[in-house]
Structure formats: structure tokens, C-alpha cells
């Protein structure tokens, strides 16, 4: 039985948000996407602790609080630290990758050039997490 996921997307690029939404709908998935434009907005949302997401898809290169800073803050929070966070980025900088894994991430996915490839990757990620057991809120 596939779980319907609450997905928090932290992404400042409008078209990237559109890509994810279009992917969900084109794959006919029921997952709920919560959109935030940057880390600050995401934190505000999370700190309300009302409707916590099952997983977070996090872009690294963002203005104000960047992905890694956001991740560090998240991991210090007693409750929020258990939310699996998957990095979704165009940067294959080894330094960033190592730093992310060090702080604690649930995956590191590179955005491919082609949209078709993007759809395939997102499908797999969501599929994977929807069969995982997650911490009950």
C-alpha cells in the first residue's frame, strides 16, 4: 500500500516548482506538495509544527538561508531532525555533498538537464519514500 506523502519543497526557482508539480500530476500521484520559496519561509512553516511534512526536498543554492544552513538548523531541532531531507540540486560540488551527508541527509539527487530524466528521478525518489516507514507525527 503506497503512502501518500506530504512533501515540503524548498525551492526559489519558479520553474523548478512547476517542474515538480507537473511531474506529480503527469504521473498521476496523490502526494501533497507544500511550496516554500526559501529556507526562512520553510522554517517558519515548520516551526508552527502543525502539519509536518513526511519528507523535504531541498535545493541548495538559495538566497538568504542557503540549503546547508537550513539543514543545520533543522538537525538541531528535536522534532524536525527526524524528517528525511533529500537534496535536489544542480551542484555536484563534492564539498557540498560531503558536508550534507555529514550533517545528515536522506539523499542527494542531481537535477538532470532533460526534463524526461527529471521525471524519472523524481518518480523513483517519491516511490521510494512512499514505501518507507516514517516517524509518526
Amino acid at each position, binding site marked *: 500500500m503506497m503512502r501518500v506523502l506530504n512533501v515540503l519543497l524548498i525551492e526559489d526557482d519558479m520553474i523548478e516548482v512547476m*517542474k515538480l508539480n507537473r511531474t506529480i500530476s503527469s504521473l498521476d500521484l496523490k502526494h501533497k506538495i507544500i511550496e516554500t520559496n526559501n529556507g526562512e519561509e520553510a522554517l517558519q512553516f515548520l516551526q508552527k509544527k502543525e502539519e509536518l511534512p513526511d519528507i523535504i526536498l531541498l535545493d541548495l543554492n538559495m538566497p538568504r538561508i542557503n540549503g546547508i544552513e537550513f539543514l543545520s538548523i533543522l538537525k538541531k531541532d528535536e522534532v524536525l531532525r527526524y524528517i528525511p531531507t533529500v537534496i535536489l540540486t544542480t551542484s555536484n560540488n563534492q564539498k*557540498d555533498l560531503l558536508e550534507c551527508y555529514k550533517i545528515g541527509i536522506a539523499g542527494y539527487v542531481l537535477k538532470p*538537464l*532533460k*526534463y524526461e530524466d527529471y521525471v524519472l528521478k523524481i518518480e523513483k525518489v517519491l516511490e521510494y519514500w512512499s514505501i518507507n516507514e516514517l516517524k509518526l507525527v
Partner: protein
Amino acid sequence: MSQNQLELLQRSLKREKAARKAAEKILENKSAELYEANRKLEKSHTELEALLGKTDSQLQGVFENIVDAYVIMDLSGYILKMNDAAISLLGFIDSKEDYNLIEMVALNEKYRVADSFKELLKTGAITDFQVNIITKKNEEKLVHINASIIYDQGIPVAAQGIVRDITEAKKAEDLLIESENRLSTLIMNLESGILLVDENRKIVLSNNKFCEIFKINEAPNKIIGKGCTTVIDNNKNLFVNQEGFISRIDEINKYKKDIIGEELLMVDGKIIERDYIPVFEKDNYKGHLWTYKDVTLKRKYEKSIEAQRQKYRNIIANMHLGLVEVDSKGVILMVNQSFLEISGYLEEELVGKKSGELFPVKEGVEIFEKESNRCLNGESSSYEVKVKNKVGEIRYWLISGGPNYNLNGEIIGSIGVHWDITDIKNLELQKEKLLIQLGKSNDELEEYAHVVSHDLKSPLRSINALVTWLKEDNKGKLDRTSIQNIEHIENTLEKMDQLISDVLTYSSIGNESGEKTSVDLEDVITGLVQIMYKPEHIKIEINNKLPVVVGYKTKLQQLFQNLISNAIKFIDKDNGIVKVDVLEQSDYYKFSIKDNGIGIEPKHHNKIFKVFHALNKRKDSTGIGLSIVKKIVDLHGGEIWLESEVNVGTIFFFTIKK
């Protein structure tokens, strides 16, 4: 018995009686003669004894009172009489010995003694006879004998002698002779010329060196007894100042005072040092001793030492290094001009002060003390120290210090050579700062490259998504040309994306964060070949087992990947072959990757390793691939070059240091 027989016997008897009577008569006469003789002998014996007794008593006093040993013996050598001194000298217990003196003579002396005995008997006396004897107590002794014969009425009857023990005297004499010999040999061969002159200025003693200096063609003993004035006068022309030479001698002779170390110049350039020592015996002038020393060589050495000293003094004074000599307590003894310039002090402000207290700033004191102690333990060392000069500027000095020894090899302090390296030090510090800055800006640059590549790639992804959606949303509505143009957009995006990736890769080579490790190329390349895209008609061969090298694994992998995929890309033959090979050299490996592709024209050989220099406009060529290859080879201390023939193929060679 017949009558005849009887008569015969009677006649014979008669003859016999007559004969006996005659014999008895003779015997009687002889007996009377004998008696007479005996009486006479007895008388003379008594007389002799009386005489002897008289002489005896006369001699007794002398005999007992003489200190020397006195012995009377008969003519065969048997002792008749001796005094106490003789008893002790000859090793007897008392005078009652019945002993022949000949037995005492040492075996090898027997003939000489026999001869002297004959002499004694013949002439009646011997004097100064020396002989080795072995006494009754078995002691070897050398004795001196004066002896004479005792006569009785012209007939020799005994011998008397006075014996002296001269063993010790002889030994002492021998020693004296020996030491005299030694002394004279010594004097003869002295390195100084010796002339001993008596009070009349006659030569008593001279030696070889004297004759040599004064060019006297005679043996030293041949001039003994000659007047020294003549000898010296004859040779005065050997000296530069002839008259002065003579007048000075006269002057010296007049005053008779010790003169030491007067210098004389000889015509042949020799320098002679002269001493004069008068000899007095109980205040009476008995002569004098001249000593002449050839000091030419010594003076020459002294001069050359002086010249050398001057030379080094000049070097020390003029060198640009500061020189400081300190004693074992660190007190400054000497500084040179350069040190004054370096330190800013005046000489009088430094000499006598402790060097350690003058200059060091806090962190320098410890180094200063440690290194000074090392010098005093006989070690040399070089060290850098931060100091303050007189005006309080911080300066950096490189000091090379070493122990200073006296003539006995004892450490009496140290000598330090100081070099003001402040300028160099500042450059060094500046360099360090720059290096840190460079590292930082390199890091920043790489960061920047990543950010830029991210920022450039993101829009490409967006454009790709949008174009894809255009296609999807307008399916069946677009004409062929539009669909083709959309494809062109997609290809351009791909090339753009590859370009950005390559630029990023290229710019990050040489900025490795990790260390080089051992890389097994056999493993890496076989793995690489398996996962690489290979068209059906192309075969990749690895001819030799690839070595293990020290380097960056991912970079090496990329190097091979770029070259092999390049080779594959440009093969136009039906059966393509890519050959990977390696040749081991003394200090590097030479790799080669050979293809049978289109080849490269010679005019391009130098350009192809430059960035953005793609020879062929292809959708999958960015012009960076070979630049990356070159950079990776550089990174591993190697070289890269190629051999190629158009339409036949290309071989890329590169080396990697072992």
C-alpha cells in the same frame, strides 16, 4: 863343597869387607859435612827470624794504621799477612786464612795477572795495576794495586801490596765520561751555533752550527785554541754591517752583561739572533758564551702570519656580516664594523656588555641562551632570532655561532657571525601571507566556479523543461520545422551543459584537496573500459599490464576516459581499434593510446591542448577535453605529445612520474 869353591868364597868375602869399610868411611865424612851445614842453616834461620821479627815490629805500627788494605804474600801467592782493611776488602773473616790470592782473579784476567807477576819479580815493583777480582764473599770488585818484592839478602822472599777498591770510583768515572760524551754530541749538533771563549778570548768550544753560520771550513774541534777575534774578524764580511758587527762585539766584551736576542742581518739575507752570556767563577770572569741562532725561517713565518692576520682582519672589518666574539659568560669582547651597522650601537656601547641582554625581544631570549650554551659545549649552530636594534626596530638575524678555543684547545667563548635577514624574512613572511591568500582565493574561485556553473546550469534545466512542455502541450499542432527547431534547442542545451561541466572540471584540476595515493591503473582502466560507451565496430585493447602509480584516482580515470573516448569518437574505419600500452622507463611510465581514426594534421599538434580549441565542430565536442588531459598530466609531473598521420590514426603519448 870343593876347596876351590871355598877359596873363591873366602876371597870374595874379604873384598866385600874392604868395600864396606870404605863406604862407612865416606858416610862418616858426609855425615860430619851435613851436620856442619845444618848448623850453619840453623844459625841463618835464627838470624832471619830475628831480622824478620825486628822488621815485623817496625812495620806493625804502619801496618795496623794504614787505611788501605795491605797484604803480604809469598811468591806463590799465599797470604802471609794482611790488615783489617784487607780482610774486609777481600771478604775474609779473619787473618788466619791460608789462601792463595791468585784464586781471586777473575778468569779472563788470569793471563794479565800472570804477566804482571812476572813484571813484579823482574823489576821488583808494579804500580797502578787494576784488576777485576771476585772476593771470598763472591763480590765482583775492581781493585787498584801497588806492590813490591821483599828481599832477604838479595833474594826475593815475599811480596807486599796495597790494594784499593776502585769499583765505585770507576763506575762514577764511566758515568761522567758517558754524560760528557752525550753533552758534547748534543752541543755539536745543536740548532744554535755555540762559541765558548775563555778569558783570553781563545776558543774553548764550538759546534757544527757555528762553523756553518760563519762559513768556517773546518771541523769545530779544529778551531779550539784559536783566538776568537781572528775567526770572527775573518768572517765579518758575512754580515751586512761589518764594522758595527765588530764594534758591537767589542762593546759587549767590555761590559760583560747578558745580551739576549740581538738580531744580525747577513749578506745572504739570513737573519741571525745572537745571545751573549759571560761566565764567572766566584766573581772572576772566566770567559763567555756566544749563541747564534738562524731565525730567518721563523721571521719569514712571523711575517707571513702577520700578513695573513692582516688579510683576515681586513676581511672581518669589511665583510657585510656582523662578527661578535664573546667570552664564556657571554660578555662581548670584540665586534666588527658591520655588526655596529647592523645593531646600531657604538663599539664602546657593546664591548664589555652581555650580548644576550642587549638585543633579544621576549621570544628571542630563550633561543639566545640555548644556542649560546651549545656553543660553549663545543657545538656549532645556525639559528634565526628576532631582535631589537638600538633604535628599537624589530630585526631578524641569522646567527651562525661556533666555539672559540685557546691554544690549549679549551673553549673560551664563542664567535658569532650575524646576518641581518630582515628583508629576506619580510619577503618570506609576505610570501607566506600571499600563499595563504592565494589558497583562500583559489578556494573562493572554486566555490565561485561551482556557483557559476550552478547558476548557469539551472536556467538550462528550466529551458529544457519549458521546451519539453511546449512539445507535450502542442502535440500534433507543430509542423516539422518547429519540431526540428525544438530539437536544435535541446541539442544546444546539451552542449551548453557539457561545456559548463568541462569548464568546471578544468578549473578545479590542480586545486586538489586530498593527497596523492597509490592507484592501480590496471583496475581503474579495465573498470573504465567496461562501463564506457563503445560502438560495435570498435575494439579496445590493453596490451600490457598497467602499473600502480601515485596520483589522484578520479583525475587519472578522467585522463584515460577523455583520451579513449576521443579516440573512439574520431574513428572512421569499419574496424576501429584503440590500443592502450605502457612502457616502463627509469623514473617514469610512458603510456600510449593509439587509434586508427581520422588523424590530426601536424599544424594542429601544438594547439589541440589549448582550452576551447576543438578541431571538429561536433555536438559532443566542447574543446576542453584535451586541455583537461594536459592539466591532469601536468598535475602528475608528466608530459604529453602525439604522433599522427591523417587518415591513418593518432597515438597520444604521456608520461607519469613513478
